[in-house]
């Protein structure tokens, strides 16, 4: 079985600056993988490259939904990447602020819907049914994530932790086989973090979605991940199980070095 996400030699230059330097990374089916590293190591740039927001300078990117049908995703637009089953969240929450919570999730269903302009105007049977189904499905996703009490609130009025979870709900609505989470626990308190921990596990167990996450909260990463990739200055400096990473001298140097610099 192919890894669901397979990145080979990914390189990204901004002008003269090499933000990513020949990164290899893979995520296996059903795996929770983490991408860690000091600030500015290039983790978010990595996400932006593989989701089509940036165009990488070099390298190959493949996805294999369900471990088969390997697809090369270089040059795909972000929406095409999402359509093919790789969804993401953002480090700085990017919700549709002036839409309701339910609508935010419904937006995720957009690429699985078909109704066009004629359908919208004539509201034929197929459109009406699709609409009804999507509302129902979206509500169920909210229930799974535990946001059903906010269903008709504007997204901007949600508490911080709930906004982060809503981003996950919206991503889940696109029916991904892999979910990329960019610092999902950032700014959360202990209580919220442990709830998030449960949620991520639940997504993996019940929905069979693989997860790749960027996170700074080491306790969270170590307890949750099957494998960890470590980046520093655009290079991958280590990969392995949490145990291996903990004792890896290069990793310790990268983190301690950062402390000394700071």
């Amino acid at each position, binding site marked *: 079985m192919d890894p669901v996400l397979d990145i080979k030699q990914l390189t990204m230059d901004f002008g003269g600056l090499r933000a990513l330097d020949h990164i290899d990374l893979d995520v296996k089916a059903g795996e929770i993988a983490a991408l860690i590293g000091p600030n500015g190591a290039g983790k978010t740039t990595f996400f932006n490259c593989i989701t089509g927001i940036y165009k990488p300078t070099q390298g190959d990117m493949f996805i294999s939904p369900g471990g088969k049908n390997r697809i090369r995703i270089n040059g795909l637009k972000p929406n095409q990447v999402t359509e093919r089953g790789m969804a993401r969240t953002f480090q700085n929450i990017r919700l*549709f602020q002036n839409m309701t919570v339910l609508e935010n999730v419904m937006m995720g269903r957009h690429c699985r819907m078909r109704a066009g302009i004629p359908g*919208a105007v004539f509201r034929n049977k197929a459109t009406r049914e699709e609409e009804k189904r999507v509302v129902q499905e979206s509500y169920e996703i909210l229930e799974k994530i535990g946001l059903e009490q906010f269903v008709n609130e*504007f997204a901007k009025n949600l508490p911080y932790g709930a906004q982060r979870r809503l981003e996950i709900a919206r991503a889940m609505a696109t029916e991904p086989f892999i979910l990329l989470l960019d610092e999902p626990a950032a700014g959360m308190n202990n209580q919220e973090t442990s709830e998030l921990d449960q949620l991520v596990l639940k997504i993996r167990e019940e929905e069979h979605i693989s997860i790749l996450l960027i996170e700074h909260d080491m306790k969270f990463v170590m307890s949750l991940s099957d494998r960890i990739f470590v980046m520093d200055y655009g290079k991958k400096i280590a990969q392995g199980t949490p145990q291996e990473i903990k004792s890896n001298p290069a990793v310790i140097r990268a983190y301690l070095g950062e402390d000394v610099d700071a």
Partner: protein
Amino acid sequence: MTALNEIKKSLLVSIWFMFLTFPIMVIKVNTVEQTISWRWNRLAAVGIGSFCLSFVWRYMLKRKETGAKKTALGNGGELSAVQRLLQNPRFFKPALLATAVFALIYPFYFSMYQVNIMTTALIYVILGLGLNIVVGLAGLLDLGYVAFYAVGAYSYALLHIHFGLGFWACLPIGAGLAMMFGIVLGFPVLRLRGDYLAIVTLGFGEIIRLILENWNAFSYGPSGIANIPRPGLFGMHLTIHQSLIYIYFIMVAIVVFTIFVVRRLQDSRIGRAWIALREDEVACQATGIDKTKTKLSAFALGATWAGMGGVVFAAKTTFINPASFTIWESVMILCIVVLGGMGSILGVILGALILMLLPEYMRAFSEYRMLLFAAALVVMMVFRPNGIISAVRRNYEFKGTNEKETA
């Protein structure tokens, strides 16, 4: 103490504005006769006016700040009295009925002049609703909107001259041509960022107007095209009065049709995608929405309505020339949308009616019309960016898991 302070502040503002407006307001030079007239009374007016307005301004700024602090919870908390009233079916149904009756009997109780003005206002209603799709829903600031209006008007005029086509044939053709223009122009420009898009569409709008002005062989140049026929009714001969009433009813029908379509669109898959696009482009794409297609559909639909408006405009005035299609016409339609409330159908309709009818009925004030519109643009942006009537999102119906089990 604070009251004294406030007065001092306002006094300073007043002095500043008297200084600011002094040369242009007070001194009027007659360059031919080399005489100067000093209009001191204006200085006093500016002083008193700005003194009073500065209180209002500061009060409104303060109110806005405190308003921002207490974030209203949920969809329901932000509803204004008007909206709550409208959502109440006991009020809404009779109001709708009354409006319908009024619209039907209007031309028979009012003068021809007033019917004419109302028809113009209705044209601006559909222009506003069309631009509302582009600006209000999809968040694309289109400053060249009037170009599509021109496309509609000129297609009717030219198709009539060259092929003898009538109004009813030209209405869909004009709308279709405008839509095609929208797609062709939209395709290259829609990947630009918001403010650049505004400027490029402005550029396109002006290019089209300048071409109409200079390409005499095609568009008859600045002198325009006259004798465009009014719409016919089964070959019957209509007096001018009758045909004005007829056009009025055509416009009422188009407005109803437009409201119907826009209402359905904004609560559909595509309409939600427009709004999401307005809210956050990057997140929108990452959520699986095709940015280009979504933007293009909004742009093209907006253009379609402008084209339709253009055909009716040409038929109503029977004369068109490029001077009707300047950038300021686009700005005026933008005013309608901004003032009424971006994304809100009722708001845009009210906006169009207020902006078009008020100056007609308050003659004294019609000279200052553009000045006041301009001031309204700024004031609305600063104090009430959502417009008179802000858009409401719909609450959808669904079943919770528990209810479903029992059902």
